[in-house]
């Protein structure tokens, strides 16, 4: 049986380990009477390790007093305490929602934003009302945080409301956040809605392209790949374009990769800036093997110094399934030493 009073006394011990153990024991005691002393100790505790132990203890105490205490910490000047309080409230899950609702209605814009940050980890239906209020909040940051959170937690019931936030003249960050959210909670109709509201992609300001391409990749149709491919010429958009085409190809395995991507994709592989982008590029080149010079290029990639490129090239050739491609792979098999590459070429699954 843990003697609570003794543990509370040890919270101020001169020995760091004793204070940590005291906090841990109070957590295990799981009594409401332990909450006050733990919260009181937090601001004056010098050791980061003990502070963490105190939060760990608060997490273990199953009493609403912990939620009320954590909410009071959201106004602390100490960013560590604020962040830990957010984590604590998230961990309390649905139990915290009524308290968060009240805190949202009574709090200033900082507190309202914190509340939405906390909701981002709670998929509970009890959060709908708070989100509804947040989307109409007078503070733009609160609205943007709510939109981001709705996307991340896939609250599809708010799809139309988010679409309506995309209007010419709205704050650019709000439009970006809404496009991002629609990539999660939207559907094919969202793509049409966005085009109707913002006009054709070519007329969009540059800062909107990454979010727009993400939406097309996630919710667009096979015909949209042409619009995506047209943006490949801009180096800063290469990663985003590749992601969008890859996403479309994942959803439509027979998607025809536009031939105008051939050269830019070769350039991405040759530049070797990022192994992942180079891998994606060589995989997409697999859809263009009939284009002039591409087969030879992909075949040469089997000897590339970057392992990801060798893997991608082998997969692309194997996928092509032609006698010529199989022969290329067979020729390289003997001289490739990396086990993972060989497994990928052979089409074996992960061990």
């Amino acid at each position: 049986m843990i003697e609570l009073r003794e543990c509370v006394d040890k919270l101020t011990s001169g020995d760091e380990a004793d204070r940590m153990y005291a906090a841990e024991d109070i957590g295990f005691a799981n009594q409401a009477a332990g909450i006050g002393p733990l919260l009181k100790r937090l601001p004056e505790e010098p050791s980061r390790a003990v502070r963490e132990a105190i939060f760990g203890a608060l997490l273990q105490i199953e009493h609403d007093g912990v939620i009320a205490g954590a909410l009071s910490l959201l106004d602390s000047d100490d960013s560590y305490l604020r962040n830990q309080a957010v984590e604590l409230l998230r961990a309390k899950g649905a139990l915290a929602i009524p308290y968060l609702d009240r805190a949202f209605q009574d709090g200033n814009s900082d507190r309202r934003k914190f509340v939405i940050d906390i909701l981002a980890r709670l998929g509970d239906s009890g959060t709908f009302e708070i989100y509804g209020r947040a989307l109409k909040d007078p503070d733009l940051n609160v609205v943007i945080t709510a939109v981001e959170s709705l996307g991340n937690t896939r609250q599809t019931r708010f799809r139309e409301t988010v679409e309506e936030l995309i209007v010419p003249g709205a704050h650019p960050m709000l439009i970006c956040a809404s496009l991002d959210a629609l990539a999660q909670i939207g559907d094919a109709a969202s793509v049409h809605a966005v085009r109707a509201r913002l006009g054709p992609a070519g007329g969009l300001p540059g800062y909107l392209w990454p979010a727009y391409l993400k939406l097309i990749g996630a919710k667009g149709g096979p015909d949209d790949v042409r619009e995506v491919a047209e943006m490949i010429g801009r180096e800063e958009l290469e990663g985003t374009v590749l992601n969008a085409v890859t996403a479309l190809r994942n959803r439509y395995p027979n998607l025809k990769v536009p031939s105008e991507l051939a050269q830019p994709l070769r350039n991405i592989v040759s530049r070797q800036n990022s192994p992942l982008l180079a891998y994606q590029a060589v995989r997409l080149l697999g859809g263009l093997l009939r284009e002039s010079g591409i087969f030879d290029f992909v075949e040469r990639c089997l000897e590339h110094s970057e392992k990801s490129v060798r893997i991608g090239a082998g997969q692309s050739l194997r996928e092509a399934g032609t006698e010529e491609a199989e022969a290329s792979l067979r020729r390289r098999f003997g001289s490739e030493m990396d086990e993972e590459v060989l497994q990928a070429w052979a089409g074996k699954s992960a061990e």
Partner: protein
Amino acid sequence: MMELSSDHFNKLSQQIYIRLGLQFEEKKSYFLQKRVEKRMAVLGFVDPQEYVFLLCYADSEGKEMQALANLITTNETYMFREFEQLEAFANCCLPEVLSAKQSRGEQKLRIWSAGCSSGEEPYSLAIILREIFPQSQYWDCEIVATDIDENVLAQAAAARYWWRSVREVPPEYLEKHFIQEGERYTIRPNTASMVRFQHLNLHDRMSMRAMRNFDFVFCRNVLIYFDDLSRKSAVDHFYNSLNHGGYLFLGHSESVGRISSAFKLKRMDTHLVYVKE
């Protein structure tokens, strides 16, 4: 065949880092993709975005992360595994701790190998200690190796290994510290005796509190199998078990940063290590 986009890879690797403390570089994207592909097949997912969402926002009990962890981690253990990390211990951390002790007139060194399994790690440390610090025979040096599984502890105490377990041991050490009988290798008694095996459950907080005054704690590739709360609790106990100036070693791709901010991150050669200041 699905492909992970860089966006999905970034989100997954970030989530794995936050929850397991494991770091995945871009170079490992294919490795991760194949494991994710396997999980997606089990779950019946076609679009990687569905899997990213599940892992990031719909896995509150951590079951999917655990299923993925089982695929992205390896259970194989052998001596001198993660050699570069042991080099950082041998060439940087150990000399620093020994020199501080010598200047204080102390002659006691304690190392804890937590989750030692069949003993490959603590015996590797014993060999390093004897090689790097020959005076260890005149000091009070102890390597405490603990595990929850009494069967593997009994196996470890026998100090006998197959060739596969010793394949990474440098040849000169193999000759010096082992007796070979065919494909079996037995650690010589004077090296083996530096290690004391002890049954310990890392979840048992009272037993953990008894582990004190260590200069090094090695707990490599163990915490990834724990849930968040247990992982945090174990790291807190490691913190308390260490002397000031002591080091915590996790697996080379594991990070303590997301679990606890109590340790200070320090660069030793090419390695990052955690020190209790």
